């Protein structure tokens, strides 16, 4: 038992340190600028995404509407197919403000989770000073790892800057975002998976202005 405890603690600490994200097949790059920008930060006035949310065995659907403003703020509304707004949020100066929320969605855990995921799409971490860039051994993908307090961010992107995957870890939390399809630098599909809670959110672009 005494022998087992240090091994257990060591493995747990590795788990926390690395957040289970493997960076094998990537090599450190010293002089590579990351040239990173968020997936949905600009290049459109409004974007409407068909959205499905699966929590455990429950399935929900609706539409996510994104609007960009010249002051780099955003308005994001989650609405039902019938057009009723369920969650209306404003993002400005690295922070979300809830404009309105239907009672059934007005739970801290739901709002915080959605806002965290959306922030990963529209903005980069506030502090990107502690970052390291890696190049895949086949040179096709670049990985930028950012440390920000207790959070770790992993951005996998192509040579022309299209982000293919984002991983965010914090202690035991693990969010993975896949962007399998782009058109004119705008993601056509976005898939968000929470590894330790059975939650997945899928977005498909249906209208862009």
């Amino acid at each position, binding site marked *: 038992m005494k022998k087992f405890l240090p091994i257990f603690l060591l493995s747990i600490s590795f788990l926390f340190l690395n957040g289970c994200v493997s960076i094998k097949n990537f090599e450190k790059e010293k002089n590579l600028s990351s040239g990173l920008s968020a997936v949905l930060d600009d290049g459109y006035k409004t974007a409407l995404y068909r959205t*499905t949310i699966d929590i455990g065995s429950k399935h929900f659907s609706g539409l996510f*509407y994104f609007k960009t403003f010249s002051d780099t703020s955003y308005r994001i509304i989650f609405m039902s197919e019938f057009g*009723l707004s369920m969650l209306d949020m404003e993002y400005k100066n690295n922070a979300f403000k809830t404009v309105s929320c239907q*009672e059934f969605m007005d739970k801290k855990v739901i709002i915080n989770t959605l806002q965290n995921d959306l922030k990963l799409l529209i903005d980069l971490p506030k502090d990107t000073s502690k970052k390291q860039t890696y190049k895949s051994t086949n040179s096709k993908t670049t990985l930028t790892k950012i440390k920000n307090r207790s959070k770790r961010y992993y951005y996998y992107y192509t040579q022309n800057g299209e982000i293919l995957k984002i991983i965010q870890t914090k202690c035991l939390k693990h969010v993975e975002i896949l962007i399998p399809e782009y058109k004119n630098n705008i993601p056509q599909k976005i898939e968000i998976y929470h590894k330790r809670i059975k939650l997945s959110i899928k977005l498909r672009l*249906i209208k862009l202005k």
Partner: protein
Amino acid sequence: MRQFLILILFMLSLSSFSQDKAKFYPINNLKELEQDLNANSAKTNTISSDFIQIKHLEYLEDTIITKGKFWFKKENKLRWEYTSPFKYIIVINNGKFVIKDKDKISEYDINSNKAFQEINDLIISSVRGTLLEEDKFNVTALKNASTYLVKLTPKDEKMKEILNKIELYFDIASLDIVKVKMIENKDDFTIISFINRKLNEEIPANIFIVD
């Protein structure tokens, strides 16, 4: 100059005429309108129609337009299908809500949940134009030359938070519902307009089955 003045006056009079035509005046005999609408609904066994749904985001100066079709069969069968810009089907049949979202089909027992019952009542009553019968709303009615406008304000405060007001627009000649306006707050509302409406035509049974 005189000709120009006459032209301006003519245009102003045209504009005030069209405003008068659109302007709604209160109806005193609400009971009579309710009876007429119920009689019209009673002789309607099936409805099929296209619809255009426009969500207005006033503050954001934007609209979101969706289109689709619906079929209704007395007493309680409905297929509400969005066809553009996405596909999404809701069917109400045999006491069940069936939702088809892409390839995923979800089924809910309407009686298992009070919210489902209320949604069912709201959708069916809106389509049939019998929402006035519901005792969940405070009702006021207005009319102009071509249209009855019935304004419904939810009595329940929780429902009011979701929908501040519902406005139903009926054609005066046919008493058919032509438009539903769902007002969420001062900035946002959704208008569903019904077009190519066909009454009492045979609807195949498989329309109300999702597979």
